[in-house]
């Protein structure tokens, strides 16, 4: 019997190639007759294009082709589609203005694509791009969502009056109003959830080629879901025959949501590769990433929590304005609605909730899902409100949470979700113990003695992973079902290749999925290969986002494995001359129950491919099965994070003294990988709280944080080491009992840190990112007020 693999911290098989420089990222690939593309981008946030002169650029050395919005329009190429239709509370569909792949007559954000220049070398393409003369008539711009909705704001799209995409709501408004009327206490806060720029370290990259020989296209692209990319591009934008288009997402250097979407550059290059009949490569430089990748967050929210005199939550009222940027990106409309408002119950039995969301177009880069996508914004609202209510009412913040925890499952929230299972008390208890909350008062007075301010904050988050089921997603406006596909190909020698529609761009699926397969088949992990990211190999895939890979993609593989075992039993029954119902499969052996007669998995595999005497009316040769899995519900990871900070009032610097994360991810396949996911998520969340903010100048509409000098990415010396632990309650509706761990860290850490910081500073609220300069200024004005 092979070693059990599930639950073991197996080292990653991906690592060898990444550690030796043998990775295969999109930009690493150079094709025969390769050309290079550079995009001419708008320097203005909002402008009309009066004219584009290309003569000088066309005459530049090495130019192979130049295309503009006019060429795209002449070729009748559609705009980019949005995958989720939100119906507003007026019953009307959202406003869905066109999203052209190259601007035709108007540019709507700094960095909007105007032309593409293709040349023999990258340097020549850059030189020629500088020769493209665009005459702009600059228009007034608006970058803030609240300002965009105000009367008289500059209008982005004729089809979206007032710059409104939709106003949407969920929950029981009348019930909430009634509950507030009888509340003993009401906590009110107003937040900005700061705009984030994802910044995967690998920039977006595309290498597109066309073959006249068989009229086919191949697109290499740094992308999280190649089949969806192909489907959207073929069916909705270019009208290409899908079977003639291969999309490959090879090694991808991080995504965090930003590489889910079908981007204009991908489509432009695919189309243009046929026009120039050469492969075309484009890799974003970092400034282009800042300007053209989909951003995240950017909410403005007013929230009110009603409580009775004992701190029992009676109702939550939330009103959010969400910035969608200049155009609707692929999932943009769902993020501040379906993925946000449905999470506002958190871990609590708040009886009534109402949330209204208005989404606005602005002259900024499109905003879409970024690690957590809606759930961090919701968790920030809930956990800042709960902590603030506890402080206002003089109740211990842990106690107020315990008083309101959901304790019986399944639990139907007032905002659509049905939690299957959880144990919020257990993760809170464990976190309190690991963080030594009991010793906090002593540590605080020690800090005080050194002239420092110390604070402690909790966040008890919940998230919903693996968007599902398709019928529910469809009812909520999703234009596609959200299932996953898997295929298990057993080779004649008993080795196995597994094809998954999930995509790995750092998550380590090649390892963890192989652990699952080897365990289920009772074979060595060395005999299992995982293949992903290539539409010519994998039958279909919805891809990787929303922490869905193992819960949805893993389950599709399990379903295919079940079919393999079922067929193996048939073959074993034939070989062992037993009834199929008497065959048991365990530890890699097909065995006749109650006997010592058995056949190993590899023997069955070989027999499947070299059958001499199969009863062909009952048994086909071969051992290859595929499955599609549509989950019956979301999974609901949850946990408690406790953060302890020390602030130096002389400088405003924040030091994270302790950070404890206790998560319930259900069953765990590879604890090493899971911990790594938590660490990474935590730093992205703490980066939001302390460092990062995408800022557009309100007058010019320019992105003022357009480089790593201006946009403060968390570096090693900004961050602490973490204490992480898990306490699992197995998911009730997938066979592995798994939930998803990719986004939790980014969801729970911002409120934990801001709760600790506001505790340290003794202020009711503080806006993210809490930079030293802003903290120092706050402390100074507080001191001046005291002195006055």
């Amino acid at each position, binding site marked *: 019997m092979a070693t059990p693999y599930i639950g073991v911290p197996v080292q990653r098989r991906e690592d060898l190639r990444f550690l030796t420089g043998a990775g295969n*990222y999109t930009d690493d690939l150079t094709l025969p007759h390769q050309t290079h593309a550079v995009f001419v981008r708008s320097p203005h946030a909002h402008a009309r294009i009066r004219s584009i002169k290309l003569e000088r650029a066309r005459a530049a050395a090495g130019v192979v082709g130049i295309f503009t919005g006019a060429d795209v329009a002449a070729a009748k190429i559609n705009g980019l589609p949005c995958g989720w239709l939100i119906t507003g509370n007026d019953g009307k569909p959202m406003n869905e203005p066109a999203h052209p792949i190259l601007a035709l007559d108007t540019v709507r954000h700094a960095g909007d694509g105007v032309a593409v220049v293709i040349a023999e070398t990258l340097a020549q393409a850059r030189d020629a791009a500088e020769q493209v003369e665009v005459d702009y008539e600059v228009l007034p711009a608006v970058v803030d969502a609240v300002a965009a909705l105000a009367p008289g704001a500059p209008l982005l799209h004729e089809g979206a009056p007032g710059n409104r995409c939709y106003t949407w709501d969920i929950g029981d408004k009348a019930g909430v109003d009634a509950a507030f009327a009888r509340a003993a206490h009401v906590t009110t806060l107003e937040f900005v959830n700061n705009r984030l720029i994802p910044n995967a370290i690998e920039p977006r990259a595309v290498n597109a080629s066309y073959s006249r020989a068989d009229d086919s296209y191949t697109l290499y692209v740094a992308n999280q879901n190649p089949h969806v990319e192909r489907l959207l591009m073929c069916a909705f934008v270019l009208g290409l025959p899908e079977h003639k288009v291969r999309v490959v997402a090879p090694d991808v250097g991080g995504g965090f949501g930003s590489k889910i979407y079908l981007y204009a550059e991908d489509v432009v290059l695919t189309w243009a590769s046929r026009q120039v009949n050469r492969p075309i490569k484009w890799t974003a*430089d970092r400034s282009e990433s800042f300007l053209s990748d989909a951003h995240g967050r950017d909410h403005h929210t007013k929230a009110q929590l009603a409580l009775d005199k004992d701190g029992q939550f009676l109702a939550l009222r939330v009103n959010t304005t969400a910035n969608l940027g200049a155009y609707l990106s692929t999932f943009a409309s769902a993020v501040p609605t379906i993925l946000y408002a449905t999470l506002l119950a958190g871990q609590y039995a708040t009886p009534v909730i109402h949330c209204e969301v208005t989404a606005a177009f602005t002259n900024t880069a499109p905003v879409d899902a970024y690690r957590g996508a809606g759930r961090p914004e919701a968790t920030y609202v809930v956990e800042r409100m709960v902590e603030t209510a506890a402080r206002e009412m003089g109740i211990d913040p842990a106690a107020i949470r315990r008083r309101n925890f959901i304790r019986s499952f399944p639990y139907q929230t007032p905002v659509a979700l049905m939690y299957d299972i959880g144990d919020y008390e257990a993760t809170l208890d464990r976190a309190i113990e690991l963080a030594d909350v009991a010793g906090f008062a002593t540590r605080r007075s020690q800090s005080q003695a050194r002239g420092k301010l110390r604070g402690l904050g909790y966040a008890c988050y919940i998230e919903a992973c693996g968007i599902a089921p398709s019928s529910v997603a469809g009812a909520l406006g999703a234009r596609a079902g959200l299932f996953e596909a898997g295929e298990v190909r057993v080779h004649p020698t008993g080795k196995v290749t597994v094809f998954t529609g999930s995509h790995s761009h750092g998550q380590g699926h090649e390892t963890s999925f192989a652990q699952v397969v080897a365990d289920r088949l009772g074979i060595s992990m060395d005999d299992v290969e995982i293949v992903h990211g290539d539409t010519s190999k994998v039958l279909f895939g919805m891809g990787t986002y929303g922490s869905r890979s193992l819960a949805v993609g893993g389950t599709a593989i399990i379903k295919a494995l079940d079919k393999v075992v079922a067929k193996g039993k048939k073959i074993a029954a034939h070989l062992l001359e037993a009834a199929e119902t008497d065959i048991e499969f365990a530890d890699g052996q097909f065995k006749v129950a109650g006997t010592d007669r058995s056949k190993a998995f590899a023997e069955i595999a070989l027999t499947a491919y070299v059958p001499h005497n199969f009863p062909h009316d009952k048994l086909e040769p071969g051992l290859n099965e595929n499955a599609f899995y549509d989950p019956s519900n979301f999974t609901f990871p949850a946990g408690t994070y406790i953060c302890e900070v020390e602030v130096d009032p002389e400088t405003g610097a924040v030091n994270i003294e302790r950070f404890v994360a206790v998560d319930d991810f259900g069953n765990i396949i590879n604890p090493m990988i899971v911990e790594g996911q938590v*660490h990474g998520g935590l730093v992205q969340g703490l980066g939001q709280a302390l460092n990062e903010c995408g800022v557009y100048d309100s007058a010019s509409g320019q992105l003022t944080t357009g480089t790593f000098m201006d946009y403060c990415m968390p*570096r*090693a010396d900004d961050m602490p080491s973490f204490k992480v632990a898990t306490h699992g309650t197995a998911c009730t509706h997938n066979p592995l009992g798994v939930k998803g761990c990719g986004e939790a860290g980014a969801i729970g850490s911002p409120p934990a840190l801001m709760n600790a910081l506001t505790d340290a500073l003794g202020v009711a609220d503080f806006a993210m990112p809490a930079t030293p300069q802003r903290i120092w200024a706050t402390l100074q004005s507080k001191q001046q007020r005291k002195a006055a």
Partner: protein
Amino acid sequence: MTVKVSLTVNGKPAAAEVEERTLLVSFIRETLRLTGTHVGCDTAQCGACTIHMDGQAVKSCNILAMQAEGKSITTIEGIASADGTLHPMQEAFRQNHGLQCGFCTPGMVMSAIDMLRHYPHPDEATIRAELDGNLCRCTGYHNIVKAIQAASQASA
């Protein structure tokens, strides 16, 4: 204008005629086809392009190829033994899950090797401070710090 650049790369001589403006990282990636050295920002902020030049860690996106004339450079492809045995730093990253998507990894490993030359037994604060020139978006740095600590102990 082109210029001839001759240098030693991973112990072997290399020479090519390149445009004067060619960056060392482009020379390594495009001319020599050693694609393990990555470009994450083009502005010397992210450190994904870190290599060793005459034994010092440098960001190859901020050096012209012609500045490397006559120098000896080592890239991520050149640090494992000829038989494939990993460098102790590579091994420590693997053992400690110090990488996820792998894109920043070559630069991290090259920086970390250089770090231990300057600080053979660094504490956590030193490691974090010395990693200031390398960005990672996946690992949260926790396991990178652990890996470098482990490598420093392994070489004790």
